[in-house]
């Protein structure tokens, strides 16, 4: 065994060396965004011929706006000036700290890509297909309302139904209470995306839309 003095120096040297090791942000991102549960990829995502908007019936459910087709959008995520663009959605980071999510109507929804894009913008999120997640008790409704909203492209708030086809979803991460994250659930059968605010450490999920959703 090395002497105590040498052992102390070894610990010290390793500590000094380790503090100089910077984990590259891109490497960390790749490591944390990869799906390590390949079976979850087996879910089939149907190509959508037509999309409709589900009504807003309860304070914890928000049907998200689906904007027009981005014909030139690439399937490969592109990052430019705070905008993440995929074939299925565009996420733009705004100067006031909010983010605008625009879905493309004719593309297959990819929950993993949306979750990755949101997290890349510093918005903790859980995105699933075919399920709805909620916390009990739920985060305050006021926090939810301040976090997620529907707007027209000119900033006009949208409420009630039907939701205009060009409405976009605006996310305000600053309004999210500590320990919460956004939940988005996409339902192929209804071609509906729901949004919710949940506690990251305490939530349950179930198949299908909640029963109190309006059609």
């Amino acid at each position: 065994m090395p002497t105590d003095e040498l052992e102390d120096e070894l610990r010290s040297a390793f500590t000094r060396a380790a503090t100089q090791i910077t984990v590259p942000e891109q490497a960390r991102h790749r490591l944390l965004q990869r799906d390590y549960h390949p079976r979850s990829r087996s879910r089939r995502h149907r190509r959508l011929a037509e999309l409709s908007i589900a009504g807003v019936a309860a304070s914890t459910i928000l049907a998200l706006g689906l904007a027009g087709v981005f014909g030139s959008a690439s399937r490969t995520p592109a990052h430019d000036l705070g905008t993440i663009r995929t074939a299925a959605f565009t996420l733009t980071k705004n100067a006031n700290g909010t983010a605008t999510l625009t879905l493309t109507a004719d593309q297959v929804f990819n929950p993993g890509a949306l979750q990755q894009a949101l997290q890349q913008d510093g918005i903790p999120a859980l995105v699933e297909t075919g399920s709805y997640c909620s916390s009990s008790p739920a985060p305050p409704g006021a926090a939810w309302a301040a976090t997620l909203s529907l707007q027209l492209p000119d900033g006009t708030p949208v409420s009630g139904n039907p939701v205009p086809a060009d409405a976009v979803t605006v996310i305000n991460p600053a309004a999210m209470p500590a320990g919460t994250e956004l939940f988005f659930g996409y339902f192929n059968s209804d071609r509906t995306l729901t949004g919710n605010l949940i506690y990251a450490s305490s939530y349950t999920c179930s198949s299908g839309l909640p029963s109190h959703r309006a059609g």
Partner: protein
Amino acid sequence: MEWVRDAASKRQFEVFAAEASDTLFRTGYLMTGDLKDAEDLVQETFLRVARRWSRVQSMDHPAAYARRILINLVLRDTGRRSRQKAELEPQGGGTEAADQYAARALRAVDDLAEFQWALAQLPARQRAVLVLRYWADLPVAEVAGILGCSAGTVKSTASRAAARLGAVLRSGESPAPEPATRQSGKEAPDAHRRT
């Protein structure tokens, strides 16, 4: 419902990965001296942990389990077990004077590149002993458990590795292979290569 458990479990794995990734990455880098290799090691480790997550998540220290996987991934790539065993067979350690020289050499190191280079000159099993014992700060018995050898072997290997590290730092040159290395067909220093 099974699905509910799966979703919650997946989320718990994500939390674990977020908490463990940096430490595992640094461990991987200390073991390989290469950022890409370190990333590959962490990724492979996460894949293996995920496959056993239902069992791992009930462990007291899932991160320790992951570190064990990572270390063994490195060692798996360094040669057959017989060669690894030869590296760990007790041999004469550093003398007290050699330890003093080594301690002095280590004290003078303040550059990661220099330290990393010197570390890379050691055979992987010696590196693993040093990383686990002095970076992860594990007790000798735990290091022995991870490496599948006796506590005595860990101690003697630590002694030889520390003396060798000090010698490399002092001389600034790669050490000549020990005579026993050639006789036993032991791996060359830094033989870790990932494809």
